[in-house]
């Protein structure tokens, strides 16, 4: 399994015109749900994205909600926010989700509904896999900030390539989120532009990523968005702000909205133990290590293990080590080393300067709620002469 797939992407309606998905009027009012696919035909269907079809709109900020279920009982499974400058333009008309949505029961009806800043005529098509053989999938919802409201206005600095001030896109929630990209307008022709995204309280922002884009003509094109190469998880309670810098001196305001996942649990390796929220202390005591009771000088002990499997961005799973040189009657103080924060797969668990012994027993223990896989331990030890 991998990011790639051998599965066929499909459009719905197949070999037919896109379907009108009406908004409910100006001011972010939901329109009615519209059937895009009457029934999935496999239990492994995966929603891949949205294609905008013919329509009539201009400088439109819109949200398209994807629902599953019978008419009148649709359940929201994702939301895509887009900026549509001009329906009469060519160009990109497809928004492919960064991660396809699975978990859709066989025979499910797929429906869209839409709301927008300004009412307009929009037709849509569903893009999906009728069975997807990739494990780069999610059951979590994509969403946006602001939600159901106009995007944040960002006024450029009057100097070319000078940063604007920071503007808060997202006030933070008590759990992690994962940024996907931006849906933005651009009122200035023929420019390169960089958007910095940062976390931190106002006046204490720290840049976490930069998205670069270009605009050839203001308010032209069918769809505007800019995506990160992979999703960017952020710590719980992160405030997300944006600033921009660009070619030229125009100070006409841009609008920016954030696309993100409100749940990052699909980015972690699940803890393979029932009751995942509890800390379980796991202890491994080594065999006695001695060589005819002569001194052994311990330079280091490296634990060869899987690292970087923390369940949150802020936790430091810890490996504890102590040793006994008298058969387990007394023990050294506990030493600790992090097994790497989430994604730090190259972290080394290496204990140095472990003294000398004639007969040693090591004890390794862990308790953080994350997957633990130990392969072996490698000691750098030198034998003495007595």
């Amino acid at each position, binding site marked *: *399994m*991998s*990011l*790639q797939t*051998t*599965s*066929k*992407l*499909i459009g*719905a309606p*197949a*070999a037919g015109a896109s379907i009108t998905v009406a908004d409910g009027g100006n001011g972010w009012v939901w329109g009615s749900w519209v059937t895009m696919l009457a029934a999935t035909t496999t239990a492994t269907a995966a929603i*891949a994205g949205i*294609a*905008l*079809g*013919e329509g009539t709109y201009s400088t439109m900020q819109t949200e398209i909600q994807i629902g599953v279920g019978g008419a009148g009982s649709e359940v929201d499974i994702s939301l895509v926010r887009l900026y549509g400058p*001009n*329906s009469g*333009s*060519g*160009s*990109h*008309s*497809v928004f*492919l989700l*960064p*991660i*396809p949505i699975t978990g859709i029961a066989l025979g499910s009806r797929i429906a869209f509904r839409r709301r927008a800043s300004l009412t307009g005529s929009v037709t849509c*098509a569903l893009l999906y896999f009728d069975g997807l053989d*990739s*494990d*780069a*999938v999610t059951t979590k919802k994509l969403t946006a900030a602001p939600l159901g409201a106009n995007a944040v206005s960002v006024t450029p600095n009057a100097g070319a*390539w000078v940063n604007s001030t920071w503007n808060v896109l997202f006030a933070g929630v008590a759990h992690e989120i994962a940024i996907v990209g931006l849906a933005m307008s*651009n009122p200035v022709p*023929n420019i*390169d532009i*960089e958007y910095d995204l940062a976390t931190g309280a106002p006046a204490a922002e720290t*840049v*976490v990523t*930069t*998205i*670069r*884009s*270009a605009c*050839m*003509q203001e308010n*032209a*094109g069918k*769809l*505007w968005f*800019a995506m990160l*190469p*992979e999703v960017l*998880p952020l710590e719980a309670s992160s405030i997300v702000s944006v600033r921009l810098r660009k070619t030229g001196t125009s100070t006409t305001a841009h609008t920016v909205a954030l696309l993100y996942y409100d749940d990052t649990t*699909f980015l972690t*390796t699940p803890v393979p133990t029932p009751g995942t929220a509890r800390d379980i202390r796991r202890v491994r005591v080594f065999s006695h290590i001695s060589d005819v009771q002569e001194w052994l000088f311990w330079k280091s002990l490296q634990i060869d293990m899987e690292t970087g499997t923390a369940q949150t961005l802020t936790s430091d799973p810890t490996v504890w080590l102590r040793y006994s040189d008298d058969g387990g009657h007394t023990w050294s103080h506990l030493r600790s080393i992090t097994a790497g924060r989430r*994604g730090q797969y*190259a972290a080394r668990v290496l204990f140095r300067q472990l003294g000398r012994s004639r007969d040693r027993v090591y004890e390794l223990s862990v308790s953080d709620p994350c997957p633990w896989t130990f392969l072996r331990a490698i000691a750098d030890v030198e034998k003495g002469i007595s």
Partner: protein
Amino acid sequence: MAAKWSTTRQKSLPAAANGATVTPSGTAWVSGAWATIGTPAADSILTGVTYRTLNDGYQEFEIDIGVGGAGSETVVATINGYFRAISGCSNDGMFFRFPIPIDALVSGVRVAARIRLHVTDVTVWNVSIAYQEKPLVGSVQTTTQPSRTYPSASNFPLMADGGSGNPAWTNGAWVQLAAATSADIVIIAATVWVFSGHVQDFELDIGTGAAGFETAIWTLKGNIVQNGAPFVTPFPNPLDNIVAGSRVSMRVRADVTFPYGSADWYPALCYMEKPL
């Protein structure tokens, strides 16, 4: 490989400046000179390419990204696309995002770009790259394989839709993009443009198989008109079922009906060879 994620910051090169000025050669499908984009401060992965131009004509293009000193550049990525008339261009179309980033940028080694067009225009382009410095934190699939294009340094093949007088959504004929792939390949993006002023829904098939025996293995549905941005669609989940020696072709069907008649379409693909 579960879903891709990373907390490593994405950066731009050049940073906080216009993209490098890249000049076409003036001869169709002949590369212009390499232009320096910049030098990364650490070994990095290439995540995307941003480009724009003030040329208002229609043009198919290929952009090479290379690494190395002047005169000894090695191509690490080639992307293709099309645009016509800046009045129709959207900005996402001006950014090519590699679904599988290319692990080819080296600390202290110059990165450069060059371009070739299917026309003789010499209006300059601005080209920049997006990248992430190593070591990466997260779960990211990368490759050292360069991205490549079908066709390569030649005009996109002419592809007809179902034709005037036929019902809407009638399939056009298959058009060959590759007679036989030289290796197992993974398709990372598709491009199509149409020579028609009529806004229309379409479906684009990628197929494999001998002439007359093609099997559709992928379908993109979209909406198009001739003026606009490069019409490039990167695949978040690249298509990985084309074995060495395969004939690759494409066809289109659209909602065009009388009085608009049929139109001329031009497809292209971007791919990587396996093993990734």
